[in-house]
């Protein structure tokens, strides 16, 4: 192939100037030339026209490019036209009209007539800028996270021996929380080996270095709780591998959680002790308090039996009072015991059908219902979660009260139930003697009675036990009544979770 001579090339493209023009108009970069004094555009290439329009030559560069009425505040003319400045000035700029980013190369060129003009070549870098911004943002986020995170964080490189077994690790990065938690200063440890920074480890390889090293080498992760004595602090330590031969360590201060846990355990232990004491009390009540009482009643009885002839009627009456008192004291003790056992002997809650529970309560009261020709009716009752035996007692106590405190007509008792939001509201209404509203709180207090024992026997424990049982079931119990108008006892029980 023979050499191409210059004149042949010129033949092909017409002239060098045409070639230059063609190049200027075909490159993707924007090119313009403007006068420095009047800021008038002298030349723009095709790329320029495609963005800022045609017919712009002769117009003000600041108007065309930035839609300003005065020269741009950031105009670089004063730099490139500075007599001390030589060569090019390169800067980045976001165009005010298009919001596109450009890398601008500005320089002064001299025209044939000797005029010096501004020449700018601008390459679009919008995409690059976006990526850069993204990167900067994520770097900032990372930085913020790293510095502000509540966990202590450190980043380590594993050091191996010749056999590729981990023997040490190097601190590569730590955050302020890590410094605070461990007491190690960043400047003392970065790029140093753990065995240097934590001198007490000396030559030996502690098991945890091995453990972390293996994670750095083989992957996997570990998580454990650790008590750091000097700071009286509990940490949750997480170790994981972000890349081969490195591992990260996260320290989470869990002292508060641990303290709370400890407190709960202590409270549970206290509760256990107090329950045991209560049980102890129950035993004392059932045994030790009963024995002297039995002595009183037995010997007054024996007195009556063996010395009947020598005791007059008044004496016999005294004996009767003494025996009666002892018997009542025994009932009170038994009731108190019963009352205390609501909490100590309560069964675990189970799902149960209130219809069946009510059925059992009614069956237990069969004799009394028949004797008093009482009529018991009820609504369909729901399933609830509770202690079946205790709830049966509640129904039984309330129904038997309805019968016991009957008026002149045969007792009619209705058991109803309505759902009220997250609770079922049960009602037991009777047509009995009613209760003076001013006593509606008092009747739930243990051993409080509104009537004499002669009128209505009983110790006054029934409603107190009902209240204790309902409270144990997270419900409420109350009464609405007027004297001689009958009474309605209400109690609530939570609806089953699945029905919520």
């Amino acid at each position, binding site marked *: 192939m023979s050499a191409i001579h210059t004149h042949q090339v010129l033949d092909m493209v017409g002239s060098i100037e045409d070639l230059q023009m063609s190049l200027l108009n075909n490159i993707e970069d924007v090119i313009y030339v403007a006068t420095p004094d009047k800021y008038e555009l002298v030349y723009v290439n095709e790329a320029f026209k495609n963005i800022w329009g045609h017919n712009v030559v002769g117009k003000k560069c600041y108007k065309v490019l930035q839609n300003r009425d005065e020269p741009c505040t950031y105009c670089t003319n004063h730099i490139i036209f500075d007599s001390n400045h030589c060569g090019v000035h390169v800067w980045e700029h976001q165009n005010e009209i298009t919001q596109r980013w450009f890398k601008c190369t500005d320089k002064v060129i001299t025209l044939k007539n000797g005029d010096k003009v501004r020449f700018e070549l601008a390459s679009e870098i919008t995409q690059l800028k976006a990526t850069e911004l993204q990167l900067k943002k994520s770097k900032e986020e990372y930085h913020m996270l790293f510095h502000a995170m509540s966990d202590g964080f450190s980043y380590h490189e594993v050091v191996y021996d010749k056999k590729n077994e981990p023997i040490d690790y190097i601190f590569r990065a730590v955050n302020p929380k890590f410094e605070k938690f461990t007491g190690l200063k960043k400047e003392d440890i970065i790029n140093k080996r753990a065995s240097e920074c934590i001198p007490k480890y000396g030559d030996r390889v502690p098991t945890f270095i091995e453990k972390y090293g293996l994670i750095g080498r083989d992957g996997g992760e570990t998580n454990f709780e650790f008590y750091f004595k000097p700071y009286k602090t509990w940490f949750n330590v997480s170790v994981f591998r972000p890349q081969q031969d490195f591992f990260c360590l996260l320290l989470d201060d869990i002292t508060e959680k641990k303290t709370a846990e400890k407190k709960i355990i202590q409270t549970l232990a206290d509760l256990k002790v107090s329950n045991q004491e209560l049980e102890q009390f*129950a*035993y004392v009540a*059932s*045994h*030790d308090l*009963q*024995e002297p*009482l*039995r*002595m009183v*009643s*037995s*010997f007054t*009885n*024996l007195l009556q*039996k063996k010395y009947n002839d020598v005791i007059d009627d008044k004496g016999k009456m005294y004996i009767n009072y003494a025996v009666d008192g*002892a*018997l009542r004291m*025994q009932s009170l003790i038994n009731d108190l015991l019963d009352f205390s056992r609501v909490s100590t002997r309560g069964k675990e809650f189970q799902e149960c059908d209130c219809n069946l529970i009510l059925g059992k309560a009614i069956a237990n009261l069969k004799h009394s219902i028949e004797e008093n020709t009482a009529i018991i009716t009820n609504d369909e009752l729901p399933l609830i979660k509770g202690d079946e035996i205790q709830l049966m007692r509640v129904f039984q106590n309330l129904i038997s009260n309805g019968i016991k405190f009957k008026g002149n007509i045969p007792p009619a008792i209705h058991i109803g139930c309505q759902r009220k939001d997250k609770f079922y509201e049960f009602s037991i209404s009777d047509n009995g003697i009613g209760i003076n509203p001013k006593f509606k709180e008092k009747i739930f207090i243990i051993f409080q009675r509104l009537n004499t024992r002669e009128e209505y026997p009983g110790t006054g424990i029934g409603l107190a036990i009902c209240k204790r049982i309902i409270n144990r079931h997270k419900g409420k119990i109350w009464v609405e009544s007027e004297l001689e108008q009958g009474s309605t006892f209400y109690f609530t029980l939570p609806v089953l979770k699945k029905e919520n």
Partner: protein
Amino acid sequence: MSSADFVKPIEILLVEDNPGDVQLTKEALEDCKMINNLHVAENGEVALQFLFKENEFANAPKPDLILLDLNLPKVDGREVLEAIKKDDTLKKIPVVVLTTSKADEDILKVYSLHANCYITKPMSIDRFFEVVKAIESFWMGIVVLPH
């Protein structure tokens, strides 16, 4: 059975720390048909010495029936029961636990220690007398025991 067996009094050991209960038991047994000798041990330690014929009890008779209270000073009734039921000779003697306690744990414990029966002392004197008589007639009259 010879007629001499009827004459021979029944030996009853009452282990009871409450003098009132001792008195009541005595009075109840006085009303019983069978002739009985009531021996009283006021605590578990004395009861064991009596049963194992130790110290001043070297000549003590082997009881035919033991009435045992549970809550006793020093060695308590449960320990006494355990010792009796571990001894080959003594374990054949019927032991009636007679106590104030109605506690489930006591009842369970006592039966698992092989007590022959568990009775809660009744509150009324009439019932108490009835119970003592019933114990006596059941264990000494109805039940056939080994010689």
